[in-house]
Each structure stands twice: as structure tokens, then as C-alpha cells.
């Protein structure tokens, strides 16, 4: 399996969103490529470990559990960063996440950066809420007067 395919499989396991939705086969936006690049650049060594865990033979019975609970803090917090990136379109440094998960977290708000304007529009938190990001909607005039379509249409297969 190519690294990108493995990354999409990991992302689907972590987010619960259908991989075909995260990275459609015919995809003009390709935010998955941006996220792959971001994670592999920000934490190259740990990212390789994450990929190797997911592509092990035999594969883990529960990939999300293996990544979040069975592979140590470095893998766990990079995977949390990847989850947050998919949902929020923003990058949270895994070391910051570690710090804020400690018994006495810093008082100041955690910092993050929007990966790109594309990433902002593709944040899955909005789809999971059957909504859209502020300032960006592909829904038609008057959509607010109609109930949203089913959640599964947003995030399911």
C-alpha cells in the first residue's frame, strides 16, 4: 500500500470518516496531500513509525486503538495532531498537545495554525455538525430554511 493510502486509512480510523470522503478517488481539492505533507514535515521520524504501525503484517485488529493507546506518547500525540488537522484544518504541535494533556496544563490557550485556506474550508468538524465553516458554504440560497441532509451523507460511505 502506498504511503498516501496508508495515511488515508490511518486518518479514517482516527476520525471515523469514510476514507472515500476524506480522499475521493477523483479529487480536485486534494487536502489529503497537504495533510500528509504537513505531518511528514513536522514530525518525520514519528510519522514513519505511524505509517509502519498501520502497514504492519498482520495489520492491527483495531488500528485506532493501536495508534492511540498501544504505541507510546510520541505516536499518540502525533495521531491527535492528525485528527485535529482533519477536523479543524489547523496544525497543533504534538509536543504542545502533550503539554496540555499533563496534570497541570499551561494556563494560556494552546496555539495552532491554519494549514491553508483550502484546509479551512475542508475542516470535517463542520460536516460532522451538518453545517459549514464561517464564510464558506457550497449550499444554495435559502438552505437555512431546510433541515440538513443525514449525517451519514456527510461522513459515511
Amino acid at each position, binding site marked *: 500500500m502506498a504511503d498516501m493510502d496508508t495515511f488515508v486509512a490511518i486518518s479514517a480510523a482516527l476520525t471515523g470518516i469514510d476514507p472515500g470522503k476524506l480522499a475521493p478517488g*477523483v479529487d*480536485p481539492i486534494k487536502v489529503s496531500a497537504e495533510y500528509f505533507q504537513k505531518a511528514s514535515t513536522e514530525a518525520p521520524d514519528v510519522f514513519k513509525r505511524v505509517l509502519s504501525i498501520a502497514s504492519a503484517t498482520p495489520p492491527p485488529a483495531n488500528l485506532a486503538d493501536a495508534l492511540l493507546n498501544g504505541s507510546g506518547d510520541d505516536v499518540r500525540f502525533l495521531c491527535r495532531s492528525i485528527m485535529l488537522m482533519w477536523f479543524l484544518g489547523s496544525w497543533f504541535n504534538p509536543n504542545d498537545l502533550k503539554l496540555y494533556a499533563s496534570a497541570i496544563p499551561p494556563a494560556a490557550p494552546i496555539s495552532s495554525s491554519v494549514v491553508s485556506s*483550502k484546509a479551512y474550508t475542508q475542516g470535517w468538524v463542520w460536516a460532522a455538525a451538518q453545517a459549514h465553516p464561517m464564510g464558506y458554504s457550497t449550499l*444554495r440560497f*435559502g438552505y437555512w430554511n431546510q433541515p440538513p*441532509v443525514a449525517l451519514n451523507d*456527510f461522513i459515511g460511505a
Partner: protein
Amino acid sequence: MRSFSSLLCAAILAAATMALATITAADVAPTEPPVSCNVTPPSTPVTSTLLTSGLPCKAAIIAPFTIENIQHGFDFYSWLTFLAVNSPQNGKTVIGQGTGAGGDSPTVWQGWKDIDSVMRADGSQPTPWGAPTPVPSACARIASPGDAVVSMVGKTPNVLSAISEPFKTGPLIDQNGNYTRFDILMNQTMFDHIVSNDLYSKAGQMKSTGDVDFPVGSLSAKPATGAVTEPGVLGSMMIKLAWKVMTPADSPARFHTMSALIYNKPVAGTDASVKESCHKATLGLVGIHIAHKIAGDPQWIWSSFEHIDNAPSQADVDAKTLNAHYNYFDPSCADCKINEPPGRPWDPNVEPFPGHFKSQITRVIPLTDATVAINASFHAILKGTVWENYMLISTQWPTNAASKTDPTGRPAPTYLANTTAETYIQGRVPMSSSNCIECHNNATTTTGRFSDFTYILENAH
């Protein structure tokens, strides 16, 4: 993922090319309006036989269904469409073999209805298809048979306004200081739907209780076998044109031209104050958008062409690989502001534009290598004609036409701008930069109902 049904239909369509050879007249189911659909698959070599291959009723897309290959299929479809709609109106002469300079001649779409003829100022029913374009009284004295009427100013500068571009960004001024002129036309399928559903007036639109749904183009399928047959049905089509005023410095052999009445509608308002006027001019085509609603792609297919002399890409400017002349760029002007509209006031009665202003335009998103290549192929069969001076910018199509959550169908490419029509909204900024489907997805009738990707109906009175 592009919907499977759409791809299946496309594959069937491609396969139909061979099947058609065995279809007899008895197999052909009568449909209205019957047309001979061009079903040439995109793997076909580009030769002069394509010049008379006709108008596609649907794009033929063949495997593999990668985004690049599907894009090629739609770009091929765009060129076939370009050849067909720009073919001589007489239906007999081959494109580029007319009697005008560069083999020019009046085109098929010059017989289509323009927006002002359909959405009339008094809300009355349009004259029948084929009837002459109504001439404003201000133009009557100078009008000649066959003159097109190019209106200049909308009552409110909006997306259909002739004086400004989308979102009131401003007019486009050519290197002679003249305003670029615009027009919007529709084919008979679209016109008939508007008339038969009383969509040409506010009163008629108020009677409607649902969204507008224009007819789609398709091929006919035999119910028993599902095999694609001809004739098919031509879908609704609309064309937006951009024109420059021809001067003695412009070579008619490089442009498709037409004689037109330039009608400046009176405007009184906060944006501009324009006096009614009319004069005659020869216009040269510099931009053309073609939108076609086809089966399986309810978001329409958007093909955008431009004159090759319009503007350099920003990369050309940076690399200093510039031509000697452009329609909207002065290579000798180092301090001209790039892609900025002129300051107000905007009054098209005042030409050349005051202060020697000329638009300094560059193309922000360059053409892809694949588009450059397909342009070269089609230019080869148009060599020596006015039409070799027009290039495809790209074709926008929905990658997931049937999406329940995204009515735009996740278009590809995401951004598509014609430097003559979306001059000032080029780029890659979501919801701000030009995206045909995304923008037109917001179009409504005067009653706020979805108008099926056209702003034409918003102009009802």
C-alpha cells in the same frame, strides 16, 4: 468520487461511437428537438474531420477515470463544442472557410437570443425564436439588418452587467482605452423553457412554486437494450461573450468580428450616471464562456475560451518572456498596476477612458500543460483561420455531480477565470476567486428560488 452512474453513462456514450455505425434510421426514436449529437470520444486523433463533427449533446468520457483523463475528456468536449457553435450560421460552410478575413463568418450562436431580447424591460413575452433582435429606439436611426445589439449597462451593476464585472469589481479597458463589451446569449432549448414557463417576467416567476430545472442534453437510449442511439436532445446552453472595439490597429484576420450597435442604457444611480446613447462599431471577440447542461451533470459544463493575445501569465511577466502586443497588457509599462480596475466614475460614453487608463492584466493561474497541448492540436486544424487565435482556458465539471451534501458537485478545476470576464477575481481564494459552478450555484429567480445556475432570470422585470 465521481458518481458511478455518471461514469457508466459516459462509458456507454463512448462505446456508442462504434455502435452508431450499425444504427439504421428505423432504430432512431423521434425526439424533440432532434439533433445529430457529436459522440466523438476524446481518444480520437485531432484531424480536420472534427471540423464538421457537430455539437456534442454530452461529453464522452472514457477510462481510465483519473481526474487528468476525465479533464481531458471534458476539454476535448469543449473544443468540439467550440468548433460547432462557432461554425458558420448557414449550416453549410466549414468553420474558418467563410468569406470574411481569416475565413470568418457569422456563427451559429449569432442566431441565438440575447438576454435583453428575452428578459424585456416591460416584462412582455419575447418575440419568437428566429425573429430579429429588437432594436432600442436610440439605435433605430443607425441600425442595419443583421446588426447585433450589445447593451452596455445594467440598471444595477451586477454579475450580468455589461459595464462592470462580477461583484462590481469594475470594467475592463483595452489598450486603446475602450471599454470591453459583453453579451449573454441562450440557445433555443433554454429560450423555449423560459417562454413556456413564463420565466421571462417577474409576474411569471411568481407563479412558479419550485426550483427552475432547464432541460438537459442527452443521447436517446433504446429502452429494450439501453444502447445509445441518435438523434439525441440538445441541452440548455448559454454563452457569455466579451468583445473589444476594433480599431485600425487591430487585424481583422486575428479576430472573429461582427458589426454591432453599441447601446448604452441610461443609468442613474450611486454607481454611475450614464446617458442613453447608441453608436455602431465593429467588435472583435476576445472571450467566450460556453455553459451546457447535460445529463448526469446538473451543474452544467463550463468551457472558457479566450483570444490568445489577451494577456500574459504572471510567470511570463516574471520571466520577461513577453509578446510585443496584448489586448490588455502593455509590455512597456513597468509601473502599471496589475489586475486593478480603473477608478470611478465608469461612463462608457467617455472613450478613451480618462487619464489614459488602460487595464494591465495578467493571467494568475496559467494553463496546464495538458490544456496547452490540446490547444495546439486544435489550432493545427484551424491554421490560417481567425479561430486559431482562440484558446481553451479550461473546462469546469462536477467531480461528484450527485453529491447530497454539496450541490456544486466539487468542481474541477476548483478555480477557473477568464481574463476578460473574471479579470479581477482570478486566484485561489475560496469563495472569492472565480469558480463558475460555485458562483452560479447561488443564482436565483426574482422570487429567491434556485434558477438552475443562471443569473439570466434574475433580470426579469
